[in-house]
């Protein structure tokens, strides 16, 4: 696309703001290199993060460009139903991680989630999860990269290659220099810049639309109710039934992502003590619950106030119209003058970079500790593993760039992400939760459950691809859209993993209880935190978040 077809232009002030952002994140990387000497520093940021830093980083690593542009586009397409991915599809799982699961990860002193599986099960289970995680991570990174580059091309007329190389090489430089320490430092900065750059859109959008009532009158009730339209598959824009949201999204996908995806869990493992590690996901959940203000609301407002009609990615590729994913930049262009526009674009770039940094730093850790060390070089000096981690960071970025172009084959970027989750995250959650909560689970049960769950997901995906009428069996309805299909496929995948894990475990020999201490509920002594006031306890704050979560769901019922 040439510059004459772009949707908006940047002024010199905007370019100055974007350039300053790049200078600061690179400067932070160079500055932190001197503090990153050991493997613990590079891969776990010295395990010295406060609850607030770990919590904001935990959230920012999830705030990739997909979270901003993709979900704003999904809100334009599906209405407020997209907010389920922020509330029931996130909050219960984040609280569960903080209150129940974190002690086991933290006490085991593991470097990674596959590392936990090695301790709980055996080496093959770790290898399987590490390889599938590495595969998923670089693909996710490529998706993020493509999403950002595509929108920058449509909106600003930037060359797709320029966007990809400029942003990803910047991430490569600062993560290679400072490892997780640098990634977390920048993620906190990026998280706040995202809010600073994006919050103005809903404020001005609500003024233009005439408040919430004005917005509802413009787009209709069908787009503004979260639960009341889900009694039938055909009553809502997503073609989903409430069972798909509750069991597929809230239970399998959400718990799988927030409690076992090492991309986010790594941030919490970097906390300075157990209480900080437990508080971090709870703090993050408060911000997560508020993210729809800067993502979902702009998508709904776009539906109400934008003069042009946005189309799916597949149609946009043919007609040249802006796609759903361009709704956020279009809203920026509608309200933001020189300076503010630069800040808004910086927020989008920051979102992309925080997501990508999360992916590559997690990839480097898993590759180094869970693939390279056990399979290629078991005993080596700490400095050797730091060097391997730095090279893996560069390798991860380069592979991600290559995979960015794979994404073009898929009609909707977000649908593809959910498909990936159901392949890898859904069965992994089954393996981790059974291992953590049931001491009878055996290493063989864990391995075969994980393998068959992953295969089931792949088979169901290919079945519908080859025979679309199979949707009525996989997603329980021929009306189901791609997102709905993903929810049910994840549910089948998890169920397969659970059944196989239990059956195989009952016929094989469990590990001695002594080997499960610090890893499994019921045989682990959770350290007592001493006499601390109620308002400092994770359970207290988790309860408050849970109450607010219920209230917002009732308000938007």
């Amino acid at each position, binding site marked *: 696309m040439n510059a004459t077809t772009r949707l908006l232009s940047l*002024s010199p002030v905007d370019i100055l703001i974007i350039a*300053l952002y790049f200078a*600061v994140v690179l400067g*932070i990387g160079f500055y932190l290199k001197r503090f990153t000497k050991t493997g613990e520093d590079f891969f776990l*940021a010295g395990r010295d993060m406060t609850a607030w830093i770990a919590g904001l980083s935990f959230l920012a690593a999830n705030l990739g460009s997909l979270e901003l542009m993709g979900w704003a586009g999904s809100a334009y397409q599906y209405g407020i139903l997209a907010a389920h991915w922020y509330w029931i599809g996130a909050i219960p799982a984040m609280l569960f991680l903080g209150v129940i699961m974190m002690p086991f990860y933290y006490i085991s002193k593991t470097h990674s989630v596959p590392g936990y599986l090695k301790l709980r099960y055996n080496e093959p289970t770790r290898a399987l999860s590490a390889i599938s995680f590495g595969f998923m991570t670089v693909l996710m990174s490529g998706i993020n990269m493509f999403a950002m580059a595509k929108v920058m091309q449509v909106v600003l007329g930037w060359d797709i290659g320029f966007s990809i190389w400029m942003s990803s090489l910047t991430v490569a430089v600062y993560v290679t220099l400072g490892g997780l320490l640098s990634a977390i430092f920048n993620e906190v900065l990026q998280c706040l810049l995202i809010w600073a750059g994006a919050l103005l859109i809903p404020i001005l959008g609500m*003024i233009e639309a005439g408040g919430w009532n004005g917005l509802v009158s413009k787009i209709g009730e069908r787009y503004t109710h979260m639960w009341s339209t889900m009694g039938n598959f055909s009553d809502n824009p997503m073609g989903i039934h409430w069972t798909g949201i509750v069991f597929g999204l809230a239970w399998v996908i959400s718990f799988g992502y927030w409690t076992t995806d090492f991309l986010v869990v790594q941030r919490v493992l970097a906390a300075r003590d157990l209480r900080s590690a437990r508080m971090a996901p709870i703090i993050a959940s408060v911000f997560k619950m508020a993210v729809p203000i800067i993502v979902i609301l702009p998508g709904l407002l776009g539906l109400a106030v934008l003069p042009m009609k946005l189309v799916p990615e597949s149609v946009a590729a043919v007609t040249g119209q802006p796609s759903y994913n361009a709704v956020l930049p279009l809203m920026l262009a*509608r309200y933001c003058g020189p*300076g*503010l526009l630069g800040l808004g674009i910086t927020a989008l770039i920051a979102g992309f970079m925080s997501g990508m940094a999360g992916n590559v730093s997690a990839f480097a850790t898993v590759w180094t500790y869970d693939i390279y060390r056990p399979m290629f070089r078991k005993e080596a000096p700490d400095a050797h593993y730091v060097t391997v981690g730095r090279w893996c960071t560069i390798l991860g970025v380069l592979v991600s760039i290559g995979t960015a172009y794979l994404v073009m084959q898929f009609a909707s970027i977000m649908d593809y992400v959910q498909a990936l989750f159901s392949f890898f995250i859904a069965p992994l959650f089954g393996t981790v939760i059974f291992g953590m909560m049931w001491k009878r689970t055996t290493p063989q049960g864990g391995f075969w459950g994980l393998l068959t769950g992953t295969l089931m997901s792949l088979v169901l995906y290919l079945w519908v691809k080859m025979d679309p009428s199979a949707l009525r069996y996989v997603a329980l309805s021929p009306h189901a859209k791609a997102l709905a299909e993903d929810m049910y496929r994840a549910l089948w995948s998890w169920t397969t993993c659970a059944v196989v894990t239990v059956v195989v475990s009952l016929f094989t020999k469990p590990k001695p209880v002594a080997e499960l201490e610090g890893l499994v509920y019921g045989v682990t002594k959770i350290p007592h935190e001493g006499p601390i006031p109620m308002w400092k306890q994770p359970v207290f704050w988790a309860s408050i978040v849970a109450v607010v979560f219920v209230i917002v769901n009732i308000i938007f019922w």
Partner: protein
Amino acid sequence: MHKPGMVSIWFFIGMILLVYGIIITGAGIYDLFNPPPHPLVLANLHSGVWWGGFLLLVGLIYSIKFRPSKTK
């Protein structure tokens, strides 16, 4: 995360918000006195001025509160 001699992340955040606030407020004030030929939607609210001012204020507070000489 305060290793000996390390500048707080909040200071970096304060500084970038301060500089952004100055630039955006300046651009907003310039637009106030030199309105563009094709004004944006809700341009009459002059969001650049007050949003830039807000960033400037937050940045100033954080830059002072977490300045290196104080946190070392």
